């Protein structure tokens, strides 16, 4: 089944046991504070996820797609980005959103059913979630082609150059769009990083339904490098993403990163994974938990003490409160908003529909306030 992450091809800098290891091509150079920062990120996004899962159970969200187990893949890659790098996520990149400064509350709107994405994609350089599998990979390539045309590719460093980062899952690699994105990126040497979180499952389908060979090798057929990184290792993921971003920004074209990780939870809260996978597999992956290994490392090396962890716990509780309270406070949109932003320019028939519907709703107002 799942390939052993100990295999040589896997880039790893921090073992499941929390030991640093050397890699010939990749290294990181973090201060203690930065390392604690990464831990904080991991812990807080897991907390966000737990809180959202709870909110769903309590009927406050219609559905939730948990990132449990994929925190390091998302924080490692998200923190490697510069200000001009632009993310095109799936529906599961809550950790990346966190890194891009999106208030987690804004993520909930989609899952609560009050909007389709509550943040400004430009402000955060973080595009809206894309639900149609794979579609966003082409958007990323097009955005990257725009960066090229804007002179944002070259040796100006992360402040003056930029790249697009397309997130997608192992299942998505079977979509035509994703493969077309590879072709376009390669042909135009677009500054794009393809960040695939191979969490081993596409709902109930194991990786073998999408590929016979390790996913990172897919890139070689399109003429650009593919690398498999331990997606549960935040340091390795950071290093690999940083290198790929640098390569993209300087004009050397795309890289495919396979972050080898595991979906610890259900596909979404609507899913029941006991129907299709065995508990032993999940247990085995628990031993590779992305947060635990960094915790061990920080404790063992004395880079963080008990006080610090406690303070973080308190911050985490505050964040959870913010999310919970914010979610419960989130108003339902007015029904009339469904007519908003369908078009930029005036559109007479739709304006008429809107007017008629407003009049229709108003006709109930005398007897009821339910549509007010």
């Amino acid at each position, binding site marked *: 089944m799942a390939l052993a992450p100990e295999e040589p091809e896997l880039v790893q800098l921090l073992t499941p046991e929390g030991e640093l290891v050397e890699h010939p091509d990749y290294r990181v150079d973090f201060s203690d504070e930065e390392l604690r920062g990464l831990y904080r990120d991991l812990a807080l996004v897991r907390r966000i996820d737990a809180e959202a899962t709870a909110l769903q159970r309590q009927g406050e969200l219609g559905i939730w797609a948990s990132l449990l187990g994929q925190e390091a893949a998302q924080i490692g890659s998200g923190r490697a980005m510069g200000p001009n790098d632009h993310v095109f996520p799936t529906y599961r990149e809550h950790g990346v959103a966190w890194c891009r400064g999106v208030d987690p509350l804004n993520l909930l709107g989609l899952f609560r*059913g009050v909007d389709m994405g509550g943040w400004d994609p430009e402000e955060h350089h973080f595009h809206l979630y894309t639900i*149609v599998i794979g579609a966003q990979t082409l958007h990323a390539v097009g955005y990257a082609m725009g960066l090229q045309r804007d002179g944002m590719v070259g040796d100006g460093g992360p402040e003056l150059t930029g790249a697009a980062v397309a997130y997608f899952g192992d299942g998505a690699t079977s979509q035509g769009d994703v493969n077309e994105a590879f072709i376009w990126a390669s042909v135009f040497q677009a500054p794009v990083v393809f960040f695939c979180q191979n969490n081993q499952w596409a709902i*109930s389908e194991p990786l073998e339904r999408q590929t016979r060979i390790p996913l990172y090798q897919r890139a070689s057929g399109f003429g650009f490098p593919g690398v498999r990184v331990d997606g549960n290792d935040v340091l390795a993921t950071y290093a690999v993403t940083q290198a790929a971003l640098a390569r993209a920004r300087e004009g050397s074209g795309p890289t495919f990163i396979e972050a080898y990780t595991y979906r610890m939870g259900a596909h979404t809260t609507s899913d029941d994974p006991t129907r*299709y996978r065995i508990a032993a597999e999940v247990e085995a992956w628990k031993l590779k938990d992305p947060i635990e290994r960094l915790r061990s490392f920080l404790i063992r090396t004395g880079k963080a003490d008990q006080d610090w962890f406690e303070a973080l716990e308190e911050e985490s509780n505050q964040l959870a409160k913010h999310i919970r309270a914010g979610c419960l406070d989130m108003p339902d949109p007015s029904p009339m908003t*469904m007519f908003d932003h*369908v078009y930029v320019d005036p559109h007479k028939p*739709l304006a008429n529909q809107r007017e008629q519907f407003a009049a*229709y709703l108003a006709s109930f107002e005398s007897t009821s306030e339910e549509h007010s």
Partner: protein
Amino acid sequence: MSGQTTTLAKAITMGLRAAMERDSKVVLMGEDIGKLGGVFRVTDGLQKDFGEDRVIDTPLSESGILGTAIGMALRGYRPVCEIQFDGFVFPAFDQIVCQLAKMHARSKGHSRLPIVVRIPFGGGIGAVEHHSESPEAYFAHTAGLRVVACSNPVDAYWMIQQAVASDDPVIFFEPKRRYWEKAELDTSAGPPAEALDQARVVREGADITVAAYGPMVKVCMDAASAAAEDGTSIEVLDLRSLSPLDMDTVVASVRRTHRLVVVHEAPVTLGMGAEIAAQVTESCFHHLEAPVLRVGGFDTPYPPSRIEEEYLPDLDRVLDAVDRSLAY
């Protein structure tokens, strides 16, 4: 096996099972349909009983599902493809419109594509974007396809089998928010009187005809009950087949009632109601006391689920249209 209370979802499972038992060439293809039994459990247990060769968990690519189904059909198989949700049929649109719909004609009748494409459709389940679409008009505008929608467990059981038996490609719409609704299903009673391409008068009435299909049939039946209390007699039609449309049944009804309202979830503009209105007006020009009125989704993207109730036609909006028609 005779009378038992069955959900619509389960009725389709039973229909598929019967079709698979009858003909070993029937194969199922789709995402998560095997071990998981489909996200709606419609194929539950079928892989276990018929094996992985006949119930195929496919790669995550809808164009791939349709394209390979076509190839299998050319080799003599009768694939039943599941599209996980309505909004995910579009990656397969090219294979459906340019290949599935046209290959029989292209080959002057040599090649047949007895393929069923099952699509859970419509809203009302509180889902996120792309999970509540009603794309039937795209297919009904495409020559070479048959398009049907079931509205209740008994029809679901029989119609899926008739669709599998059809030598033409059939786009089979399943009203996802009715999956859990139940009815008595007596499989030994035999199929309904109507053929797969025929509509049915599900409630007789004298004052006005309301035509619907899929999930809206129930809404219209409820509207008819409510209207009856106010003394208005609504005849309700379940169209069942959207391509071909059974205009004989529609026209016969309108000739009796002189008024027609068509109801669907899909956006009004160029929805099924447009075609029915155009045809009925032509066939019944001198019989109509009011223009055909349409109740449908607005011409907007399907909204966030917290306001989908307002987007979707409901009993009030149907009755509002009925009143407007009667006021002519």
